[in-house]
């Protein structure tokens, strides 16, 4: 109890473990190849299929073992965090930006604009996101930008719907009416008076989206429709390892654990942030 009392109120219940995992992922993403224990693309066929260090044939040089071409799995997992972070960052900025703008405009103006937006959202939601990804991948070249395009196309509607609802309740408040009577222009009302009030919601939605984006990217890359060789992605590592599932159990489990830990941490952190900033969103 004595220890508890010394922690400031705003720091209580902070999910430190989740933050630690996210920090490691973030540092590996920014750090580049220099901070990795080994070159992630270095082939070493003599050392192929080396198990993790605790197994009979393992060595400390490759703590999590090597894949079919003798590449160090730990280094590849750490290097793979870069793609996850890049995809998550772009996807969130664009889908959040487009969704928030659409939600703001539709919620504030209502009428025809709102009706059109709602129809667009319904159309978007009538195509399963993986199916949408498949048809886009068939039409365009698969790769990083296609993955981001698909995710933005899938998630903008999610932001738009929730922000629209928030704006519709906010615009009935007195302070908005006062601003209008005082002659404040519509763009100023949207940007200065409404946007700051939906900002918490936006932050919470963005954090909760991180885990889903990482899972989505991994699934697309696993199917061969996402990130392509020689870029390193966790989903792609699993697709490679799948052929050698009888020889190397570690090649199947380790990248998956990386995906799971990252998503878990992002979700735990997102849940904490939501309870802190915007408990009304708990149904999500």
């Amino acid at each position, binding site marked *: 109890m004595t220890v508890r009392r010394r922690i400031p109120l705003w720091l209580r219940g902070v999910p430190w473990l989740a933050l630690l995992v996210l920090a490691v992922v973030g540092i590996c993403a920014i750090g580049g190849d220099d901070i990795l224990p080994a070159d992630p693309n270095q082939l070493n066929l003599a050392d192929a299929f080396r198990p993790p260090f605790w197994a009979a044939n393992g060595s400390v040089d490759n703590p999590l073992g090597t894949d079919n071409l003798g590449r160090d799995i730990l280094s590849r997992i750490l290097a793979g965090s870069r793609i996850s972070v890049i995809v998550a960052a772009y996807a969130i900025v664009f889908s959040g930006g487009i969704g928030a703008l659409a939600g703001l405009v539709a919620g504030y103006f209502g009428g025809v604009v709102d009706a059109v937006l709602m129809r667009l959202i319904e159309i978007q939601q009538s195509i399963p996101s993986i199916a949408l990804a498949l048809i886009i991948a068939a039409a365009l070249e698969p790769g990083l930008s296609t993955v981001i395009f698909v995710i933005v196309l899938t998630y903008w509607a999610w932001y738009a719907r929730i922000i629209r609802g928030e704006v519709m309740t906010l615009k009935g408040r007195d302070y908005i009416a006062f601003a209008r009577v005082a002659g404040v222009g519509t763009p100023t009302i949207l940007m200065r008076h409404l946007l700051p009030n939906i900002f918490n919601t936006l932050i919470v939605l963005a954090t909760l989206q991180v885990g889903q984006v990482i899972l989505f990217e991994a699934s697309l890359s696993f199917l061969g429709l996402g990130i392509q060789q020689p870029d390193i992605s966790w989903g792609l590592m699993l697709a490679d390892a799948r052929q050698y599932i009888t020889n190397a159990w570690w090649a199947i489990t380790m990248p998956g654990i990386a995906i*799971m830990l990252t998503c878990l941490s992002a979700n735990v952190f997102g849940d904490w942030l939501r309870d802190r900033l915007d408990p009304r969103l708990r149904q999500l």
Partner: protein
Amino acid sequence: MSRFLLHRLLQGLVSIVGASIVIFLISRLSGDPVQILLPSDATPEMIAETRRTLGLDLPLWHQYVIFAWDALRGDFGRSYRWQMPALRLILDRLPATILLAVCGLIFSVAVAVPVGVLSAVRPGGWTDRVGRIFAMLGQAMPAFWVGLLLILLFAVQLNWLPAFGYGGVSHIIMPAIALGWYPVAAQTRIVRSAMRDVLDSDYIRLSRALGTPERWIVWKYALRNAAVPLLTMLGVYFAAMLGGAFVVETIFAWPGVGRTVVEAVFSRDFPVVQAGVLFTSILFVLSNLLVDLTYGIVDPRIRDDR
């Protein structure tokens, strides 16, 4: 009620038409199909001639109308690879996908209902705690990885189940678990909160006062009412299974629509991709419509209000 349904039906129709426009437009992003069909040394006259026969010289909206009209009559063109009408190929593969989705749904409900009920009866008890941990893990594991782990454990290590293919009951166990894994967490949460509400109500308190055995109260009286939110959501989950089937079918070499479309993407078999995606979208919209229908059937109180 009927006006509400009519409204929802219209809405569904608009969604499907919209989806077909999106699918048509995205397919046209791939560039000029003539370049794939003709040899590279084709003369300009040949190119113009092919464009005219394929209708590519028409304005875009006109091309869409032709596409939609053909689609309405069930004509999506012939599969380049399988040499048969694309729609027939998709319809041939549909039963396998529906079977898989239904089994996945059965698995998730079979886990979610008991866990949800037990954690509502004893909040903070061990079922509640273990259930929460599994829910957190479940939401962080991609379906394809769950599938790979199942193969690793039950096919490679223990040799209990076949790793892939289509056949008897043993073939469907792992794909169904992989597909049903993700929604378990959300379904458990729905059952748990519904049970908590119902267990708090007067008629349950009265049954308790009358000395009805607790087992009856929980599993018969309470569960019947608490199941309504989950039952009405089954359509949504079924729709989600159709989306998840694309990945799961690919891992387990399950001969359904999902795997066929994924393969068609790699062989640039456009008619099959279009037919498959549009067909999945229609099923998706229909199963969501079903949700609104089941509201009235499962809970008669709602029927007259609408």
